């Protein structure tokens, strides 16, 4: 048989074969790049069930991802895919919510812009029967124009945890005012350890608590900027004083949301959420005390930021009803899952009052104290406070804290942006 001599050019058949291969490759790579967390078909059980995509940010506590997968698998009425997002979850979620390829169910914090642009659906009927079992703050933070748009999954109080032994050794009491906090941080600073860690940005996370401790608020009840006054300026000025005291840890390998700084002995006190309590207790045992953000002065009040995560249903979902049903099942009906989610990995307060009251792990030590402080001083987010306002507020704090800018002038600039945004939203 003579050897086959390949043609110099491409035959039609060759071209079709090769372009067909390219097309298959393109389809494969496109499929790889479009992972939304949603199962590829109707579901493993035959395709009749709705396929839902549930998005989470990356929790730091080991076991949380497996827990989320376990809950999803346990749900029988739809096939739920879980997408776990390390890094900048907020930006990814923002982009995802612009398209129908985004999540069906996602965790986030509500702001009015999400409602006005129709990104989320109201969930009132889901919690109608158990509304009284949620705290007023948890309901308020998810309510716009009288409608509830999200079901709170966890409550994450943020406070100052400190090493009791180090305060005792220095002969100081737990700080009760901001001045006490600054003095304590100075007294606890040594060659090897800084007094306090409030984030590598110098304490921008303390902006809200400092404002509340002065008696102010992000927004007033009638939706006006609530920080344009001398006491707020004084509170922000104190944050700069703390930063400039050289007793604040800066440039730590991980940020304030991770307990490494206090656990590794880089700082004696740390501003952090209750989620990190198990890790801190494991490393430090009972040598752990807790205080709220201290009051500005005798006229002020202590403050605890009662943050957390809420589950929402995307209005762009192809399966809004199925998504709602899943959210109700997981965060309203399955109380054992909420308990597991809040208490078996990091520590969080279960949003359902009935569950929080019987949570044994929150009944003793620093956990019990944190819960008490949250009940007494907890403040939740106002949904009318938009990310644009938050950015202006953060820039203001950066200028005051790190650059030592005049608080009065910086407040004026931020207030202008916030007022413009409020006019756009409320007229």
């Amino acid at each position, binding site marked *: 048989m003579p050897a086959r001599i390949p043609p110099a050019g*491409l035959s039609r058949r060759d071209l079709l074969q090769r372009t067909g291969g390219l097309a298959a490759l393109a389809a494969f790579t496109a499929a790889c790049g479009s992972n939304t967390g949603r199962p590829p078909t109707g579901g493993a059980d035959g395709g009749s069930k709705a396929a839902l995509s549930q998005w989470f940010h990356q929790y730091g506590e080991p076991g949380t991802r497996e827990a989320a997968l376990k809950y999803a698998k346990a749900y029988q009425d739809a096939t739920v895919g879980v997408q776990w997002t390390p890094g900048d979850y907020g930006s990814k979620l*923002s982009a995802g919510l612009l398209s129908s390829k985004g999540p069906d169910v996602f965790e986030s914090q509500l702001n009015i812009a*999400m409602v*006005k642009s129709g990104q989320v659906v109201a969930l009132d009927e889901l919690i109608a029967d158990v509304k009284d079992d949620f705290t007023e703050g948890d309901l308020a933070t998810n309510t716009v124009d009288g409608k509830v748009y999200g079901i709170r999954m966890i409550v994450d109080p943020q406070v100052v945890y400190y090493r009791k032994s180090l305060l005792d050794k220095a002969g100081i009491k737990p700080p009760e005012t901001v001045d006490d906090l600054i003095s304590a941080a100075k007294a606890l600073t040594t060659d090897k350890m800084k007094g306090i860690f409030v984030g590598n*940005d110098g304490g921008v996370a303390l902006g809200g608590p400092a404002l509340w401790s002065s008696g102010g608020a992000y927004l007033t009840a009638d939706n006006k900027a609530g920080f344009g006054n001398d006491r707020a300026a004084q509170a922000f000025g104190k944050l700069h004083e703390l930063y400039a005291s050289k007793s604040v840890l*800066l440039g*730590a390998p991980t940020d304030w949301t991770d307990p490494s700084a206090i656990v590794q002995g880089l700082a004696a006190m740390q501003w952090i959420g209750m989620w990190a309590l198990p890790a801190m207790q494991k490393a430090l045992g009972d040598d752990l005390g807790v205080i709220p953000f201290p009051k500005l002065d005798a006229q002020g009040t202590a403050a605890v930021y009662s943050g957390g995560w809420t589950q929402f249903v995307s209005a762009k979902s192809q399966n809004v009803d199925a998504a709602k049903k899943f959210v109700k099942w997981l965060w309203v009906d399955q109380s054992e899952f909420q308990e597991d989610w809040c208490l078996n990995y990091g520590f969080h307060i279960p949003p359902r009052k009935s569950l929080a009251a019987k949570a044994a792990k929150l009944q003793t030590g620093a956990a019990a104290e944190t819960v008490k402080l949250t009940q007494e001083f907890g403040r939740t987010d106002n949904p009318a406070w938009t*990310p*644009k306002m938050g950015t202006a507020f953060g*820039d203001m704090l950066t200028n005051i804290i790190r650059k030592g800018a005049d608080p009065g002038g910086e407040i004026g600039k931020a207030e202008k942006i916030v007022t413009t945004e409020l006019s756009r939203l409320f007229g």
Partner: protein
Amino acid sequence: MSSRSATRNNALWFWLFTGPFVLGLLIFSYLPILWSLVLSFFEAQNTVTPSKFVGLRNYADMLTDANFVSSLGTFTVFALFIVPLTFVLSLALALLVNQVEIARAFFRSVFFLPTACSYVVASLIWKLSIFNGVRFGLANTVLGWFGADQIAWLSTVDPPWFWLPIVTVRLWLQLGFYLILFIAGLQRISPTLYEAAYVDGAKPGWQTFRFITWPQLRATSVAVLLLNLIAAYQAFDEFYNLLGNVNFARPPLVYLYGISLGSIQDLGRGSAGAMILAVVIIVLTLLQNKIFGFGKAND
């Protein structure tokens, strides 16, 4: 094979290989640019669909936005550091590597290797290992040997130490690329020019560099400067990963990312900012071209 079918075959091959890329360019570059242009004239909050025509209002907003203007200032400072430093160091390294007799390819590879590293990975190494602010960070350990205090490199605004990690990480990452360009330029210079110069009494070193190498490298130098400046405008990864979205060192792309794709999601204003930035880059490039005479490089 007739010349007509050969031409047709060539055309087929051309489209087979370039078609997917042209398609990608159209879909992922030109279409978004066009859509961004459209959005820049509309209100588009939390949506990529234009909702209300606002004319030039987004442009006016961005041009009067202190943060946007300040981001252009950040770029200028960054460019003032990075462009001359990259130029001088890559040229110096290229001259050295080009003169090495033994293992030239090895040295070339050593300097080029960082180019293959991701900006994100390099930034994290810089942030977590070299320039972290605690006592066990590499830079602080070295300072400790000399009895100096620890420095919070990325957190200290006054003095602005953060520029050191920002500039060095990019230098490490991109020096190799420009080094290769300069080596290519150096190897294009005819040895006879140097021989003639030596015959005429020129001394090796500064004299031959000043009167032969430097003028002969004009085309390469202009290209390096141009590419460097555009790359400086595109700064995003190292700023975002080392500093986050902070207002004292926020280059234009980080600011626009925050407005458009971050939590603010104001696609209208973000698109207007992107268009303004594009115009600034085009004007600066044309200006640079005019000053350095890119087209006259071989005259």
